[in-house]
């Protein structure tokens, strides 16, 4: 059975992609956060452009900040956004 991952975008990631979210079927070779990014970049040129400088991206899995090499495990939501600038 294929699992589905919700992907949500914020700030300039959202603006430049022109969308707030995506759905992704998790295939067997998609294990980490970085695998999701790689997959999206292969899917469409726009991801390739927006995700070009990965040092400027931050990630949260099920609302917890994670590193790119974090395993997706059973996570349901991946958030991709720039470094935070609140306060």
């Amino acid at each position: 059975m294929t699992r589905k991952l919700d992907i949500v975008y914020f700030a300039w990631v959202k603006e430049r992609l022109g969308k707030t979210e995506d759905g992704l079927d998790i295939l067997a070779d998609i294990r980490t956060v970085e695998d999701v990014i790689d997959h999206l970049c292969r899917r469409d040129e726009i991801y390739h452009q927006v995700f070009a400088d990965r040092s400027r991206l931050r990630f949260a899995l099920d609302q917890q900040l994670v590193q790119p090499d974090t395993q997706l495990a059973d996570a349901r939501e991946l958030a991709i956004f720039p470094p935070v600038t609140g306060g």
Partner: protein
Amino acid sequence: MIKISVSPADFSAGEEIQKIAALGGGAVASFTGQVRGDGELVALELEHYPAMTEQALQSIAEEAAAQWPLHGITVIHRVGRLAVNDQIVLVCTGSDHRQAAISACSFIMDKLKTVAPFWKKEIWQDGSESWVEERQSDLDAAADWKKRT
């Protein structure tokens, strides 16, 4: 006693300080951040990640509560469009000890700046917009606490 609020509504620093003071600790520290009038800046647009924001602030507050003897912690962060001089954020901490109150307040602000999912967009008089970039000084400040604790 931890109170977290994330909303477009304005707040009264004085009232929040009074509530923390009413817990009786004797020492209350606060930090208030507001939109600074930077040249041609008209407003900030504060975006956040609703599903994550409150729990991220709650975690920071709990981390502070584990490190210092605090009677109360209040963290208020506004979202949406904020004009120059509008208030953005309030952190208020109460303790029996002034250094605990001040250190915890400072810690919470430093962590909030680096891990709470807020993003600021600057809106300028000529209609242009720009996303605020993270600042190395904020990263350094947050990293300093790890060395100290």
